[in-house]
């Protein structure tokens, strides 16, 4: 592997995986997405001019492939997403709480939050990855975070 690609892989593999995992909520599928996007990127990365456009493209592929998988999955069974998560991804209390809250957010609110919180992208970068305008990105993140706060408050009230 060339040094430039090796660096890109080393610095992003874990975050790409966690973004895909946050969207799909299924470990095996997230690993498949990670594998597919890096191999696909490897075939074409020579034509990229800058690191920032490579990262944008990488996460855009990961998000699109994850959403495609959700669509395929929802055609097969609408219940699969809810069934697989607890067995595959819950490792500790913090994670259990986050998974429980995120599982109740629709994917269009979940995805920009994951890109912001896990991969650390700016609004501008997220707008490029999701091909949405910045206003829409901000609004979705704010709506998503507000819902997360409301759900967390309800869980505290009900002693969950």
């Amino acid at each position, binding site marked *: 592997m060339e040094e430039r690609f090796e660096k890109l*892989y080393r610095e992003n*593999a874990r975050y790409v*995986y966690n973004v895909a995992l946050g969207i799909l909520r299924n470990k095996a599928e997230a690993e498949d997405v990670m594998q597919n996007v890096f191999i696909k990127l490897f075939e*074409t*990365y*020579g*034509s990229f001019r800058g690191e920032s456009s490579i990262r944008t493209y990488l996460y855009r592929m990961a998000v699109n492939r994850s959403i495609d998988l959700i669509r395929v999955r929802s055609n097969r069974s609408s219940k699969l997403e809810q069934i697989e998560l607890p067995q595959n991804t819950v*490792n500790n209390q913090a994670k259990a709480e986050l998974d429980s809250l995120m599982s109740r957010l629709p994917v269009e609110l979940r995805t920009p939050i994951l890109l912001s919180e896990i991969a650390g992208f700016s*609004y501008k970068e997220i707008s490029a990855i999701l091909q*949405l305008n910045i206003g829409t990105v901000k609004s979705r993140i704010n709506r998503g975070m507000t819902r997360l706060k409301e759900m967390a408050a309800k869980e505290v009230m009900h002693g969950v």
Partner: protein
Amino acid sequence: MECKTVKELLYDYTKNEISAGQKESIASHIKQCHECTAEYDELIRLKALFGSSLESPSPVVLASIREKLAAAPSGRRLHGFLRPVIGIAAAVMIIASAGFYTSGIISHKNNITDYMIESYEVVEPEFYDNTVYNYETDILYGDVL
């Protein structure tokens, strides 16, 4: 600044994607307003959950990706690797042909060496225009979600 405005800008504040003036107003508002402080603290707590919940992909999968990448064709890598090999091969063939020619075995040197060199001609990789966002013009495209 009113509580409603502060709450709307809290996430931007945590991301530091806010003007210096707004940043200052929010910081001073949070110091005085218990409700907004609680809101801010909860936001910080939720954000921390993301950081502490990161998982690592399976080492087996990571190793498998590395293996596949090592074997996968890459426009840039393959051409970079092949260029010296092709150059050396062409040079060896030219020298060999010249040797045969001078020894009288081959009398059509030019045709044969030309054919050999053409056979190993390097094909430039295709150009992929993967630009997804133009930061200078701020051009954005359709909604995928």
